[in-house]
């Protein structure tokens, strides 16, 4: 009984650490968007909220890059990681007319 339980827990922990490296969180009336790129030196967040100006993301205590945004607007976004455009594995996408795509955040509800 214990062995299968340990196996399941172990698998869960492994899968957790291998999980998608991008996600968002609604917390305290703010939208947090995270990016796990531990080896990156500089990460910028870019969105349609302000005509695609670059905003430097900060690394939090857990070593994850994060940005804080208003939660109630839809916008398209991408990251620039050490001068390379990174399209995270987001749920919602739109084409970018440059042969690639952008992520799009759509407020819940």
């Amino acid at each position, binding site marked *: 009984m214990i062995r299968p339980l340990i196996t399941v827990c172990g698998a869960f922990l492994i899968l*957790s650490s291998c*999980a998608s490296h991008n996600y968002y*969180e609604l917390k305290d009336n703010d939208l947090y968007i995270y990016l796990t790129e531990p080896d990156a030196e500089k990460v910028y967040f870019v969105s349609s*909220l302000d*005509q695609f100006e670059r905003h430097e993301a900060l690394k939090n*205590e857990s070593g*994850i890059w994060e940005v*804080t945004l208003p939660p109630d607007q839809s916008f398209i976004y991408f990251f620039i990681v050490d001068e390379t455009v990174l399209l995270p594995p987001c749920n919602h996408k739109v084409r970018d007319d440059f042969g690639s795509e952008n992520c799009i955040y759509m407020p819940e509800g």
Partner: protein
Amino acid sequence: MKKIFFIIFLICFTPSPLLAGEVDEELPMDTSARIKESAMQVISLGVENNALIKMTRSMIENHFMEQQILESYEILIKAKNEDLPEGPIMDKLYEGVSKNIQAGNIIQAMGKVRSRYETASNYAVSFLGDREQARIMTGNIAECLTAGVGTGDMDRIMEMLQQREMKRDKASELATETLKTARDMARTGVESRDIIDVMDNAFRKGYGAGEIKKLGNAFMTQARTSSSPSDLASSYSNAIKQGATADSLMKLSPGGLGGALGDLPSESPRGIGSPGGPGVPSSPGGGGMGSPR
């Protein structure tokens, strides 16, 4: 009387010397006269002068050639002459600059955006018969096209909408909700043909604007935790075909119809978005960088 009309004509159609001065002052000194003249022409068509100056400065700073700058103006002029919005076209420039895209490709992309809005406008005007009323619908259709709905499929959606016989305001409402739902579904990766299928079945069952809106909300809620939005869309199609109401779609169990046709609830976690994976990090301590608020 003729004199008065002549003076009014001069005021309306001669670029203001004040505006010319602003363009002169705000652009780098070595900006060519051709660019400045062309900028004035764009502004005279209604593009906000600060916005155009900002766009021009961005192109100059990013080493666009004169011909490319003039081409970008031509795109804006064409858009304004067709009563299309310039905002999305200008945004495409900034997106391209941020991504370090080559200038030529940025200009091409700006042209694509204009073309997409032209197509969207044609659909909207054809449906509503009124260019003024068509503006909002143009935006919704353009978003559908950007999300990946093909023009052939958009033809089909508009055809389905045209076939619904209802009063103009109801038709407009239904079109709005249908387009928004189609857009949102496309953004999750659902293929156009599956979107058409859902809408076709919904329309056959007499879904109105309110029901389509509920359908869209239910789908987006469930799609957040679904491993296959396409399969979810197929489930919706089948459920609706078998008589599921819009209210019951939220109860649709993954891959099945039982929830929507019975009383089995389904749960979807809210608040944490993670594409296909568990694992949220421990809550970060410090504040993140605030992007524009």
